[in-house]
């Protein structure tokens, strides 16, 4: 490589560390190395070493030429799941110790499953303390803050070896003076103690969610500060002098130092990259603006969306074992189902087939691994059906035994259901596909998107095995499979913008619209965006600002988000237009509208994005080398039996030519299964596009 500048983007997943690297103006390439859980920096540097070996340039030289290193990680998510966060105290308003214990109610798996234990609160009751104070809904102080009592409590916390403090007082989003004062006293009496104020972190109503946000954020602070410091030091020691950015749960990037201050934003940091990459791949081939984005991994199948070019968010992000804790934070709306390659298929006493929730994981793994796992998995079914070549498993790096897969399916599925081997294997893949489709339906339902009006962007190692079936089930054609589909998240990190959201909660009803107040709010939001833009170091022209409102009918308590195409309200016509947009969206989502009713705007929001790439178009990342040559093998198709099927190498496909199914397309990271009723084309960008034949 020459002296051009380089950008790195990495995603550290549970199994693999993906690294995408691009020299200015060149086609990016991606690399995959094993994650090193004890010290993820090692795995990351191993991936950089792979680049170094590939291009014959020392690691130090590569890193020295790099301005930007973007990093996504599941570290924070894993810390919450495994309970390895800091010993954290929670300070709440007097009388409300049990906010985290009671939650919002609910949470049972099913109506009559009385075997479930009630989940423990994220911070135990014994570490939750009341602060004598209270503020009302209008922001008035009902009970003054008892500072003497609080100081005594802080002394007590020092003796208890508390490592972090979360503060979540009632009504702090409306009046944060008490939380601010608690913060000052913590700084004064426990200098150096990491803490989080709920009103600073997440100034939204509903005390349970805001308290949960603060608790999780505070508990992550010691660990994640250390993690980002190690990452920074590790890269610097190898010669990196550029800017270290972290992928956030909202699908943007922030400076590592900022994320260390609010580490809750790095929860879900990896998967948030997938829809960012998907949006970019869709634009490259001009595919449309509304899509289902899937990422088929070894243990889970993750789904996210593009909605009219935007990446939809949710306020209900759950994290931890069995999704026990709510982050209370808007994040990229992504769903995960346990329908990965390792999910186990079984038949219950009533004769019904199930997939999961048990997974064979990596150890013992699917039956075909021959490591003692005798339960049939989705991977075993794909092997039996001929989707996967037993001699080219994981690019030929692993030996599998197809007979073991056959035995497991015969014994556990085919015999109990009275099916033959192939129909049983097909049923397993079909039901796994149904779980995937359900996850897609759940997220599209929540976001008000009709799968039939969307297309599919398929990523992950298992992308090619299921994408055609899922698209057929939901009628969401065509399917786009980018060449770098196996590194969606890292590609997303490479493309992400510096991004921030600002929101002001101030209730305004349309029938007495306060133009002055709204004008001031919008001007304030705009000023905050301008400040963010000038701090970002990018050109004004590379920044975009999008306003929206969170609104509802009076007396409703759940808002819907309505995008605005104005940045100010100057006339009744502007207000009437917003009302119309709201009525329309409400009817589309919920089948009803209340035309005679005014609209209540609860929050005024803005998203600001600064593109780090400017106008520069990045070509689609290319995959590492393929095997070559064409061959064929027998593949089973339901209702048609086994058909001899041609196997093509992805790199050999000619751009623009139509290849009808049945067909298999192989690359070292995935196999694409094209059934008899579909065909494919290779696009100019190198992606594969699957369409139904008729």
């Amino acid at each position: 490589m020459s002296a051009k500048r380089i950008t790195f983007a990495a995603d550290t997943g549970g199994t693999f560390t993906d690294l995408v690297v691009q020299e200015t103006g060149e086609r990016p390439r991606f690399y995959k190395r094993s994650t090193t859980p004890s010290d993820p920096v090692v795995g990351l540097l191993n991936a950089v070493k792979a680049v170094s070996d590939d291009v014959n340039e020392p690691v130090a030289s590569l890193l020295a030429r790099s301005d930007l290193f973007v990093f996504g990680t599941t570290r924070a998510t894993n810390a919450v799941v495994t309970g390895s966060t800091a010993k954290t105290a929670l300070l709440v308003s007097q009388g409300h110790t049990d906010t985290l214990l009671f939650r919002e109610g609910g949470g049972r798996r099913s109506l009559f499953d009385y075997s479930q234990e009630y989940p423990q609160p994220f911070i135990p009751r014994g570490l939750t303390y009341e602060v004598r104070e209270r503020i009302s809904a209008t922001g008035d102080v009902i009970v003054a803050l008892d500072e003497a009592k609080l100081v005594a409590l802080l002394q007590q916390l020092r003796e208890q070896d508390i490592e972090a403090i979360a503060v979540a007082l009632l009504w702090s989003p409306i009046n944060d003076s008490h939380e601010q004062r608690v913060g000052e006293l913590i700084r004064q009496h426990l200098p150096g103690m990491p803490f989080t104020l709920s009103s600073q972190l997440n100034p939204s109503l509903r005390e349970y969610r805001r308290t949960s946000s603060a608790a999780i954020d505070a508990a992550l602070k010691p660990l994640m500060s250390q993690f980002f410091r190690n990452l920074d030091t590790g890269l610097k020691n190898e010669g990196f002098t550029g800017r270290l950015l972290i992928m956030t749960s909202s699908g943007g990037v922030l400076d590592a130092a900022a994320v260390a201050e609010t580490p809750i934003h790095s929860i879900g940091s990896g998967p948030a990259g997938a829809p960012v990459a998907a949006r970019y791949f869709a634009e490259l081939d001009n595919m449309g603006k509304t899509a289902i984005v899937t990422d088929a991994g070894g243990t889970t199948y993750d789904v996210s969306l593009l909605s009219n070019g935007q990446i939809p968010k949710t306020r209900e992000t759950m994290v931890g074992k069995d999704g026990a804790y709510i982050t209370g934070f808007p994040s990229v709306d992504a769903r995960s189902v346990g329908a990965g390659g390792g999910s186990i298929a079984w038949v219950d006493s009533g004769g019904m087939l199930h997939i999961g929730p048990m997974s064979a994981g990596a150890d013992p793994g699917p039956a075909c691994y021959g490591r003692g796992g005798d339960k049939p998995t989705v991977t075993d079914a794909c092997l039996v059906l001929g989707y996967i070549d037993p001699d080219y498993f994981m690019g030929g790096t692993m030996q599998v035994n197809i007979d073991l897969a056959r035995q497991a399916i015969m014994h556990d599925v085919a015999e109990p259901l009275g099916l033959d081997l192939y129909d049983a294997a097909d049923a397993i893949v079909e039901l796994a596909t149904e779980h995937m489709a359900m996850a897609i339906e759940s997220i599209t339902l929540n976001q008000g998107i009709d799968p039939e009006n969307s297309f599919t962007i398929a990523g992950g190692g298992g992308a090619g095995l299921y994408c055609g079936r899922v698209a057929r089930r939901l009628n969401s054609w065509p399917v786009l499979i980018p060449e770098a589909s196996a590194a969606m998240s890292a590609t997303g990190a490479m493309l992400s913008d510096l991004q921030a959201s600002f929101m002001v909660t101030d209730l305004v009803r349309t029938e007495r619209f306060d133009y002055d107040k709204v004008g001031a709010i919008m001007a304030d939001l705009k000023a905050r965006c301008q400040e963010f833009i000038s701090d970002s170091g990018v050109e004004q022209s590379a920044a975009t600002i999008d306003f929206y409102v969170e609104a509802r009918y009076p007396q409703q308590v759940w808002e819907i988000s309505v995008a605005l195409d104005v940045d100010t309200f100057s006339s009744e016509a502007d207000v009437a237009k917003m009302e119309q947009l709201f009525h329309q969206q409400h009817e589309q989502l919920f089948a009803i509208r209340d035309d005679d009713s005014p609209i209540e705007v609860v929050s005024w929001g803005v998203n600001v994005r600064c593109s780090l790439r400017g106008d520069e178009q990045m070509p689609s990342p290319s995959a590492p080398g393929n095997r070559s040559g064409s061959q064929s093998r027998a593949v089973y198709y339901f209702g048609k039996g086994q058909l001899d099927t041609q196997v093509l190498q992805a790199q050999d496909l000619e751009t623009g030519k139509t290849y009808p199914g049945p067909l298999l397309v192989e690359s070292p990271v995935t196999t694409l299964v094209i059934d008899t009723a579909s065909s494919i084309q290779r696009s100019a960008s190198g992606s594969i596009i699957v369409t139904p034949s008729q």
Partner: protein
Amino acid sequence: MTKANKTLNGHKLALINNRFEGIVRAMTNTLLRTARSTILNTGRDFSCCILTHDHKMLAMAESLPIHVMSGPDLMAQCMAEFFPTLTKGDAFLHNSPYHGNSHAADWTMLVPVVDDSGTHRFTVMAKAHLADCGNAVPTTYSAGAGDVFEEGALIFPCVKVQENYQNREDVLRMAKVRIRVPDVWYGDFLALLGAARIGERKLLELIDELDTDELNAYPEEWFNYSENLMVAAIRKLPHGKVTVSAWHDPIPEVLPDGMEIKAHVAVDSEQATISVDMTDNPDCQPCGLNLTEATSRTAAMIGIFTSLGSVVPPNAGSFRRLTVALRENCVVGKPVHPHSCSVATTNLAELVANSVARSIAELGDGFGMAATGKASPAATAVISGNDPRPNGGPFVNQLMLGFTGGAAGPNVDGWMTIIGIGAAGFLMRDSVEILEMKYPLYIKSQHVIPDSEGAGRYCGAPGCKVEFGPLAGDLTAVWLSEGTTYPPLGVQGGHDGSKAQQYICYADGSKSEPLGTYERVSIYPGDHIVSISTGGAGYGRPEQRNPARVQRDVAHGFVSEQRARDCYKVVLDKAGNIDQQATENFRAG
């Protein structure tokens, strides 16, 4: 066991079932997000389901069991009888306790799903507990009503409210002049309608998409599958007959002596059937506590499903294995007009469900469940008043504040936020901030009450203490707090849960006398209602409880060290660790 020719194999069955459950969830989502009263948009006191064209319960997803297990079948049948020709675009409002509904406050929207050929294929139902239903007293639980006339609820015995997708405005106008706070009511009505229409829209899509033979075969095969699971579950239960009883609190002038409710339960584990006989109970009473046919049968069914020990889908198929004997004019049976059934979903219904669950526990350790915390503490009162704040005005709503009380099972502690066995933990709690924003309230505190759990090998959830009052303007609250006299009952040596209490703390610091089970109070800013809900009952003897669980309960402040020692016979050292030797000796001696 039913054997039928199968059109659908196991995986097809799962696929189609997922679609139906998904449609019910879409209905649920619509109702939650669009309703105006917090009892619906936060408390989730509503249910949605799908019935077959011949009125059999097909899919209920996460509906409240007391709303749906029996009742929707009767109501859909009633719709077909009253309106022999069902047309696309029709919607029917039904809340009549004498025609299959649960109680008058549960407004139900029935929409027949009629395909393009004019054939009635399914019925979708959305049922919501309204904040007000026009009762004489501002509560939807009118225990003191001598009959339906005193109760005062507007009754719609399956009345057409939409034709060709357009409102029948004449009918809606009737409601608007008889419901408190009509604007909010209309919003809730729209939410009900929206939920039903979303269900209809999605079912019509499904009818278009699926193979007709498969879709037609599905209900019966799903029922057969469910019945088979039910058979397998009942075969694991102990065979036998048992009679159980429990008492409802006395209420002065309404039910002065309280009332004993009996259930005769027979499990035939060879034939795989369960029968519950509820006929041995008093005649209908001149008060609002009488159950409806729907809730009498449903309550008994909930007791059974709660006790199965394995998960069986609740639908017309699994129901085939149950019989519930009911008689006319019985408090737990089929009420006769004009007896009032205003409170038919909670008080006696909870007693019946809990008694049946306890009866299974009486048949053998390892089965059934202890009694769940009792219905409707003051923290779930119906409140009303006039909000003096800007944008205020009259309001009426049911609270869903601290109410815990999950019962112990044979292998698990009680679920903290169960909110009654009939709701099965699927009601949600109010947010303090949302409540204080919408109504002029001040929620002073909500706490678990230490040492209130029904002790046992497995424990009931502790009770909850809540202090709340008006922040501005006066506040009327009506509650019906069962368990003030008679606590939830333990099983197999497990202890009873603690009792309910309620009183008022006045602004000057003084306290009222203890208040009764059924009260209507008016209080003023500075005063607080104190609500103490019952603890769930325990399962098995407390001295058999795993000491590690006792230690955890002490660490969390649920149980005092004193009680750990006296009741559970567990000795903890100063650091809170278990003194193994002392505990063993103590338990042995």
